[in-house]
């Protein structure tokens, strides 16, 4: 190894430590005690539209999600990543996200699921993210150029036009459980199985600033009980004046969750990490800042 390459490695190492990946006002994380239980929470600000969302839905050009992520993140300031949509089968080697799924314009799953996974998540190439309620007869979405358009999810012709547009515009789409939308409580009581839970919530604080939260609950709860607790946490602990949406992030077949500190190093708190390694990811949602 030459002196130059050694110097380069040393400089890279020093710069990684010396220069923060993100500022405290852009993102912070912690472990909070709420209603006698511990939650791992990542709080992200979208001030000046600096927060960027990226979703990896499936392997591409024979590259696994893990490989795609590692290549993509090289020049990014990563805050955290998590598994997001449910898997459509138990074998993670061939499973795909459950419900309608488009990965940057490439169709992964055409099957829109109605009546169960009501959250339709759209991630734009710009890194902007929006969540729509499929239970609403008509979805009003941003066409990316500021123009609004409507689509009725039960009309196959309108949905075909919508999917063709998403493919052209390289939009990313997936479906998941939706518990809160535009301040409307959509939680349905269930006696489902007990498991660790994770949610993505977006809401406005007292100053009107839009904040993104990932709330990781390690304790075993039913989906509805965990969603209700999360809403109470957001209202009373984080003092959110409104909740734009609250969606589920998968912790079942794939439980991937990792948070970086502001130097870019992975945190090791049990409340801030998942049980599965990224190399088994079936899909991944990533948050970074400019």
């Amino acid at each position, binding site marked *: 190894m030459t002196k130059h390459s050694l110097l380069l490695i040393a400089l890279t190492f020093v710069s990684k430590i010396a220069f923060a990946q993100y500022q405290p006002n852009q993102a912070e994380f912690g472990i909070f005690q709420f209603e006698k239980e511990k939650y791992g929470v990542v709080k992200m600000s979208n001030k000046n539209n600096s927060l960027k969302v990226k979703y990896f839905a499936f392997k591409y050009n024979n590259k696994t999600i893990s490989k795609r992520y590692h290549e993509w993140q090289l020049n990014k300031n990563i805050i955290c990543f998590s598994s997001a949509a449910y898997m*459509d*089968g*138990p*074998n993670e080697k*061939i*499973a*795909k996200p*459950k419900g309608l799924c488009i990965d940057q314009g490439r*169709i*992964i*799953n*055409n*099957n*829109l699921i109605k009546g169960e996974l009501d959250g339709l998540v759209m991630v734009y190439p710009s890194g902007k993210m929006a969540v729509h309620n499929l239970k609403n007869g008509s979805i009003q979405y941003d066409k990316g150029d500021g123009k609004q358009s409507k689509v009725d999810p039960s*009309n*196959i*012709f309108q*949905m*075909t*036009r919508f*999917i*063709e547009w998403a493919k052209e515009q390289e939009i990313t789409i997936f479906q998941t459980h939706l518990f809160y939308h535009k301040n409307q409580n959509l939680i349905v009581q269930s006696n489902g*199985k*007990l*498991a*660790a839970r994770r949610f993505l919530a977006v809401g406005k604080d007292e100053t009107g600033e839009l904040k993104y939260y990932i709330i990781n609950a390690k304790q*075993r709860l039913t989906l509805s009980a965990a969603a209700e607790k999360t809403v109470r946490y957001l209202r009373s602990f984080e003092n959110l004046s409104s909740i734009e949406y609250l969606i589920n992030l998968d912790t079942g077949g794939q439980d991937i969750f990792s948070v970086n500190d502001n130097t870019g190093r992975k945190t090791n708190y049990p409340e801030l990490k998942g*049980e*599965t390694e990224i190399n088994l990811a079936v899909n991944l949602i990533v948050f970074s800042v400019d």
Partner: protein
Amino acid sequence: MKINYKLLFLTTLTLFVSMFLIILNGILKEGTGALPQEANEVRLGTIDLSNELKGIAPDSIINKFPAQAYLNSTNYYSVSEINNDLTYLDSLLKDKYIVREELLGELLTKKLFEKKYPSGREINLDSISIDLQWIEKFNAYSEVDPMPENKIFFKAIYGYWMKELSLKLIEYGKGNNDAKYNFHYRFLSEKFNEKRFNVGDGKDSTVEKVIKYSLESNWAHLFKSSWDQASIIQLIILSSILIITLFCYAITIIYFTKSK
């Protein structure tokens, strides 16, 4: 040692009868599963819309359209026949939206599907195979038709049928625990998965999951899943067994330590 021939005979007989019943059950199941029958269909040849709609005012066409006759004809089976009907209806109605979405669109999606797959009828894999081959032509046609309205029309019909057929296949898989070991089902599943109308790879039973994770040495996942899905009683029983085992070990260690 004295051999009890009576007991030996009874044991052998019981084993033989049990094996015979198991094999007989397998043969009967195989007989009904391997050769599914194709669903019957009524087709009465093509229908000439110019003849059927003669003398009907354009604004009454939607109400007086011979929907049932159209569904009983073979027109829907051929993409070129549908294309001729589209051209003819366009010349009468001048509104491509009404022709494609309210008239033929509705007929060729919901109405035709309800006719071919009425709720409550047993799902037939051969019927799904035949309809899959038919509907795939719509996708190919949508790629080459230069008219944007036709592109969306054929693509939407393709999407509707693929989705509904894949849901039928999922329903079949849920109702037949052995489906994933049936070649016909697996072949169709792969076809739908390949076209991105995913039906998944079937649900594993608890025993299959345990075997799978054991073979993959995925012990951490196996333990976590078992722990998460266990009821409080199961957890109490497991904890009691662990405590008793540890207690026995402790007593043994104490005994050996003291005896030295």
